[in-house]
């Protein structure tokens, strides 16, 4: 009797707990799907059935792939459904999966495709469920509808793009008018007027670079940049940039040399030549800009290591004060001792440079000592950069 009562009470408690778990599941905003170790669906909450576009009762007992179709990009036909979920469960549910080990995975963006409906963008996280002995008994998939986030991201990107485009038009017209004035197309000008117009032209060109760099930052930050690697002679790429800036380098009294690894004098690396050119371009212009006044030297070296190529740009310029070195890759940062220099940069160059290097699979860092100079380093894996599909390029 005593025993029976205890059992009944325990069942009731269990029932109450079960009720509250189901209530909880149905009232939370995230979609939750629970499956057993045979991949059969045991629970679908209200939010999940809304995302799947299916009544929850239709899914219960079904295998997960019969009721739930997930793709990376709905515009690519024939893409495999469930993608990352499948290997995940195969690993987690295999007989030799270690006990007491939680398997988790998150997918920041995928699309749930639905029969006769628009695909729903979701962010997912998946985790295994375990019994008291630590055996995997099933899995829980939590998903969040990210339609609004994607829409906001799109609005932000479009805004930056339209704003930049609208800013470029008048800046371009100003540039051409000043160029015509300087060329005396509209009438003779005095030396003083020429000096003022030259300053206006330089400021205007700086603004043009700033708009272009801001747009590039927005593209890099949104991860929409396309990276198309191709076999590239890095030596020639460096020499082309040096050649392009020949006059600027000479005007600042700098001497630039390129030093290749004697064991590897002309390496061919699988990189996006346009993006890496931008990196080398920024580093050389930076080195020239912060050169000390007399006998400035800049040396660009390429060295092959075990797992990567390392490119360094050394200068004997003004160097970066120690207490400011941490901020050097920050947007719009300019070191104290660089403030007095003619500021031709936008304050975005090194930030953009580091982002490109990281997108290319490499690392970027520097060593610097004030009044002695700075060396910037970046690496590219020996295997090259991985292709990155994106709809935009840098400008």
């Amino acid at each position, binding site marked *: 009797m005593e025993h029976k009562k205890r059992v009944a009470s325990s069942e009731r408690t269990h029932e109450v707990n079960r009720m509250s778990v189901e209530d909880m599941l149905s009232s939370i905003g995230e979609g939750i799907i629970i499956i057993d170790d045979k991949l059969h669906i045991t629970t679908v909450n209200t939010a999940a059935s809304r995302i799947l576009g299916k009544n929850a009762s239709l899914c219960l007992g079904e295998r997960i792939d019969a009721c739930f179709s997930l793709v990376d990009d709905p515009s690519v036909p024939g893409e495999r459904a469930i993608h990352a979920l499948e290997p995940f469960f195969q690993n987690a549910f295999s007989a030799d999966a270690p006990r007491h080990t939680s398997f988790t995975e998150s997918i920041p963006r995928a699309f749930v495709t639905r029969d006769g409906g628009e695909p729903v963008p979701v962010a997912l996280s998946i985790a295994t469920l375990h019994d008291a002995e630590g055996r995997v008994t099933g899995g829980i998939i939590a998903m969040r509808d990210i339609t609004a986030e994607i829409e906001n991201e799109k609005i932000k990107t479009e805004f930056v793009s339209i704003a930049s485009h609208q800013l470029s038009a008048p800046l371009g017209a100003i540039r051409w008018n000043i160029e015509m004035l300087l060329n005396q197309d509209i009438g003779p000008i005095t030396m003083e007027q020429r000096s003022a117009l030259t300053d206006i032209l330089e400021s205007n060109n700086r603004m043009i670079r700033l708009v272009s760099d801001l747009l590039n930052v927005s593209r890099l930050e949104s991860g929409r940049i396309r990276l198309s690697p191709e076999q590239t002679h890095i030596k020639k790429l460096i020499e082309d940039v040096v050649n392009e800036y020949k006059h600027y380098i000479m005007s600042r009294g700098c001497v630039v040399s390129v030093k290749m690894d004697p064991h590897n004098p002309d390496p061919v690396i699988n990189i996006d030549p346009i993006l890496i050119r931008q990196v080398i371009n920024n580093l050389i212009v930076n080195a020239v800009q912060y050169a000390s006044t007399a006998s400035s030297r800049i040396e660009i070296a390429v060295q092959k290591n075990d797992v990567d190529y390392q490119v360094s740009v050394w200068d004997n310029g003004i160097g970066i004060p120690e207490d400011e070195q941490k901020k050097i890759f920050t947007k719009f940062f300019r070191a104290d001792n660089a403030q007095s220099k003619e500021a031709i940069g936008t304050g975005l160059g090194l930030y953009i440079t580091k982002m490109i290097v990281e997108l290319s699979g490499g690392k970027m860092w520097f060593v610097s000592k004030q009044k002695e100079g700075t060396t910037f380093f970046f690496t590219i894996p020996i295997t090259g950069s991985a292709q990155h599909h994106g709809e935009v*390029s840098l400008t």
Partner: protein
Amino acid sequence: MTSTEEKKPTVFIIEDDPFVLRIYQRKLGNSGINVQLATNGVEGFERMKEAPPNLILMDLVMPQKDGFELIEDIKRTPSLQHIPIIVLSNLSQEKDIDRVKGMGVEEYFVKAHTSIHAVVDRVNQLLGISESHT
């Protein structure tokens, strides 16, 4: 019409920004070129069909008929399809530039990134005028 007028090469400019239009007019008009102007693609196309120019200089983002459509129309029109085209636009994306170049234009300049002298030099080069006016 005098004989010198006849010899003057004609450049047809289609551009909707009046400030930029005035610059082209001043810079090219001063260098012995007969400059024709239109502020949209529809008007530009109709007038070019009546009197084909020696060179077309055009924007891409324009009202009524944008530059992409205009280039398609030009390339479909026998009397216009061989005329060299220079596109000057603020669109600086590789995909736009590749698309336009693939349509058979001679040159693509991103306005703010190009000096007006470079534009005039290219115009002169395509017109076969050796003398530089910059």
